[in-house]
């Protein structure tokens, strides 16, 4: 009998033997194995050419086939895309006529800039009062004085067409997801993927199907800006209190009435938040979509950057930032606008005074525009007097030239200090790390990530991560992916080193928080594109500049999550530590940070996502990683590579997200704060 039970016991032991090996030893074994393998087999360093799946070529061919031969239900595919293109061209055209081209056919000019500026300001006053109106006035004056009006209007053309489309599409999809299990199963994972996909990656597939031009930019923008609206719709509909819904039912609502009269209106705040995000995403995308044919500020800014005309670039960057801030504040103010209680007691004119004022200005300015050109388009030059007595009061171009010169002077002086730092860091830190990642045999990478995935998230996460990793290994994108990984990891490390201490500082001092948090909000308002400007200005091009461009954008979540994580610690936990006699430092390192760690890690997760999105954008000023593949694919028409590269950026994001997310969820569960 004893003999019969004894083997069972050892067998059980053998079954758990893997868990008995310490984790570090498991990792060490994988690393050693991978390195040794790479010594005896070249294929472990570079995936063998012969085994490479020519996925990119297939995709490119497939797209060619789609565009030339494919038919769907008897309709040629290219006819479909052409039809969609034509249908979308119409609203873009009308917006163009309205904002800067004018209605040539009926001899009506575009909206006079005075009317647009007044309209925005009046709307701002209506929704947000005097301060917001002032912000709008200043922004409009800035755009006018720096000769950026027309480009701003070109940018706004796509914004005003894309926002309603994205919002509507988002609401419809959101409703559909909440109504149908099937829709939810199809669409929710798609949103997950879309969220991890950087702006840039949307451009390649759309550009592949539609010709270079504003319609491509519009489509990519709408697709990119739609998910937040859908998410907010889903969130809003799912969080309507059951009492409200049941009250609606008991009031005798039909299903449709319940949706349109009860559920949707009572989630107005959440929907408005979604609209705000749609607007911000739209702007962020439109400026980047310049590489796919969107004209306007983004296009000009890209050009200035490539020409190293930094003064102009800064002016354009400021314009984009100001527009972003104005749009953000306007949509937020609109979302939080209180309904007027006493509307019923007012006369029609009183209730519509803002509207009437705007209509008045519109008519007057159209008439005045016939006589004074500066009413129609902002003057680039104001001249007083005639002949010899002429004095130039103001000259936008001159102003820009001065700014340009000032930047140049600054750089000349600053380079003496900046260049050595840049070069030292590049040579001693960046290049070695990059070389390490390029040397890394893929079995080591796959093994380490795989083991981590398995330990943190179990089999499903392991399988997902393996599939994603092999997707870029077997298609021959290993080198580009490693370059992106290296940039992102270094940037994320720096973001954490900067962001976490700032977050801690803000959590400890109300005053600091009052300064840092609004700055964070503002930094997140700006389209990511503009972060290239200071990077180029200070460091020209190269990995150092790219990392520098990532920092202001991707540090924000590190700061914010640290701050929130620390703020959310229950006071009793801290009081208990104080009662136990912990010093401030002990409290921080032994109590607060460990408890807040899951939250901080979620911040890191966001940081990585944003760093990934930003590396793709740095491709606009020169890089050699996945982002560059995306950008290049649009000009070379080798769309397969661009689409795959975009997907791999998303894949890196998803891997990081699953690893960190699983860890944080598990840790939160252990801490009982889930």
């Amino acid at each position, binding site marked *: 009998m004893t003999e019969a039970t004894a083997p069972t016991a050892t067998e059980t032991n053998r079954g758990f033997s893997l868990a008995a090996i310490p984790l570090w030893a498991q990792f060490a074994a994988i690393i050693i194995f991978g390195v040794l393998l790479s010594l005896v087999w070249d294929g472990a360093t570079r995936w063998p050419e012969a085994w490479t799946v020519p996925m990119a070529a297939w995709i490119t061919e497939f797209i060619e086939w789609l565009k030339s031969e494919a038919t769907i239900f008897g309709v040629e595919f290219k006819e479909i895309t052409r039809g969609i293109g034509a249908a979308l061209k119409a609203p873009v055209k009308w917006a163009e006529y309205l904002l800067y081209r004018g209605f040539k056919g009926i001899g009506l000019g575009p909206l006079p800039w005075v009317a647009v500026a007044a309209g925005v300001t009046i709307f701002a006053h209506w929704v947000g009062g005097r301060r917001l109106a002032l912000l709008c006035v200043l922004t409009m004056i800035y755009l006018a004085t720096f000769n950026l009006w027309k480009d701003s209007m070109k940018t706004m053309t796509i914004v005003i067409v894309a926002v309603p489309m994205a919002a509507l599409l988002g609401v419809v999809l959101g409703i559909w997801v909440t109504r149908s299990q099937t829709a939810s199963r199809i669409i929710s994972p798609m949103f997950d993927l879309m969220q991890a996909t950087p702006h840039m990656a949307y451009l390649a597939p759309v550009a592949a199907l539609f010709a270079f031009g504003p319609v491509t930019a519009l489509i990519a923008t709408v697709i990119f800006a739609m998910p937040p609206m859908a998410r907010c719709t889903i969130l809003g509909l799912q969080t309507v209190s059951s009492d409200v819904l049941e*009250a609606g039912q008991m009031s*005798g609502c039909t299903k449709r009435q319940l949706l349109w009269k009860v559920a949707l*209106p*009572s989630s107005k705040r959440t929907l408005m938040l979604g609209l705000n995000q749609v607007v911000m995403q739209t702007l962020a995308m439109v400026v980047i979509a310049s590489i796919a044919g969107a004209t306007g500020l983004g296009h000009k800014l890209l050009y200035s950057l490539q020409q190293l005309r930094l003064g102009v670039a800064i002016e354009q960057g400021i314009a984009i930032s100001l527009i972003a801030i104005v749009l953000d504040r306007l949509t937020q103010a609109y979302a939080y606008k209180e*309904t007027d209680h006493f509307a019923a007691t007012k006369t029609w004119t009183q209730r519509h005074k803002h509207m009437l004022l705007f209509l008045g200005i519109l008519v007057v300015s159209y008439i005045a525009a016939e006589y004074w050109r500066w009413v129609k388009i902002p003057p680039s030059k104001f001249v007083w007097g005639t002949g010899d007595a002429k004095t130039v009061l103001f000259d936008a171009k001159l102003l820009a030239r001065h700014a340009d010169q000032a930047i140049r002077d600054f750089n000349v002086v600053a380079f003496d200090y900046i260049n050595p730092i840049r070069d030292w860091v590049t040579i001693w830190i960046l290049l070695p790390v990059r070389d390490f990642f390029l040397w890394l045999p893929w079995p080591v990478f796959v093994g380490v990530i795989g083991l981590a995935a398995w330990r943190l998230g179990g089999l499903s996460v392991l399988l997902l991560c393996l599939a994603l990793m092999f997707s870029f290994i077997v298609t021959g994108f290993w080198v580009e992916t490693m370059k992106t990984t290296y940039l992102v990891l270094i940037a994320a490390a720096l973001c954490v080193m900067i962001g976490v201490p700032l977050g801690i500082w803000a959590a400890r001092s109300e005053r600091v928080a009052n300064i840092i948090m609004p700055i964070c909000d503002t930094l997140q308002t700006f389209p990511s594109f503009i972060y290239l400007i200071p990077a180029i200005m200070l460091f020209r091009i190269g990995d150092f500049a790219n990392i520098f461009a990532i920092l202001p954008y991707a540090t924000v979540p590190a700061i914010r999550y640290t701050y929130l994580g620390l703020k959310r610690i229950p006071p009793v936990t801290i009081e208990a530590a104080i009662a136990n006699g912990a010093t401030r430092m002990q409290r921080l390192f032994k109590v607060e940070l460990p408890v807040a760690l899951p939250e901080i890690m979620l911040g890191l997760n966001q940081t990585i996502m944003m760093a990934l999105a930003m590396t793709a954008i740095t491709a606009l000023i020169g890089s050699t990683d996945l982002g560059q593949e995306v950008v290049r694919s649009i000009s070379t028409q080798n769309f397969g590579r661009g689409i795959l590269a975009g997907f791999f950026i998303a894949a890196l994001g998803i891997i990081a997200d699953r690893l960190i997310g699983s860890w944080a969820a598990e840790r939160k569960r252990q801490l009982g704060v889930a």
Partner: protein
Amino acid sequence: MPTDVQIKCRNLWKVFGADPKGFLHRHNGAPTAEALADEGYIGAVQDVSFDVHQGEILIIMGLSGSGKSTLIRCITRLNDPTSGEMEYEGRDLLKLSERDLIDMRRHKMGMVFQNFGLLPHRDVLENVAFPLEVQGIARPERIERAKAMIELVGLSGRESYFPRELSGGQQQRVGIARSLAIEPDIWFLDEPFSALDPLIRAEMQDEFIRLQSLLHKTIVFITHDFEEATKLADRIGIMKDGRMVQLATPEELVLNPADDYVAEFAKNAPRERIVSVGAIMQPVAGNASGTVPMSAKIGSVAEQVLTSEHPVAVMDEGNNTIVGSIDRQTIATSIFGTRAA
């Protein structure tokens, strides 16, 4: 009596879980508590049968989780019962089409919710007019009717306020006005006052009594609060773990509780205001002095009886005959007796 039965429920079951219907079927429609627990089902309402009569106030009580809300929600079809029968004035409630159900809610049923369930994006007037709006009643008429309701609940002047700008009590007044706007025949209230603080709650109870004295609706009312129940109820149904343990008048509950659970509820009841003289009187006594009416609550005659040396005669006001007597001892034990024990 059958003519005045407005709602009839027979063997109502509501089971929550993976496959409630199959589960009930497997257990022949009557699973035991063990079966429910073993298979992870919740028997929110279990084999409940009762009638609601025209014009009565029926109050349902029970501990949290005993199934009160679920029962009401079955009757209003916010939840569909798993099995059982329900009739409304002879019509089978469970066979109503979607359209008929909506019609029923639009014209016959009103409901007030614990957390008010007001629409946050509509002001008071629009909230109250909402049930009329979804019926498609023209704006001038629904505004007029909504205004009348707002006046009825004492909120005139607040028509343009939004729910978040009102106190809890005021919000519930809006909820009440809204549920009454369609002039329902039967009125459901699920703990309408429990989210309010005690002073407001007392005020709202009085308000409710005032409204009922004007409207004479059939009412099904859920509360946790026995005192509230005795103040309002014609009959009280007590629920425990999904079952209706006892359904009777307050007096009967106090005097003859079906079990310890009911007795526990009745323990703190203000007996002097619930129990009538007739219910506890003794046989006619020879040495009685003075009389008290048979239907009087004992609280109202306590002073007279307690200060009298002799038992007091009990008179049936219907035909002015002496039907019994009551003495100090009886009054004292029925007010304090069980409480001491």
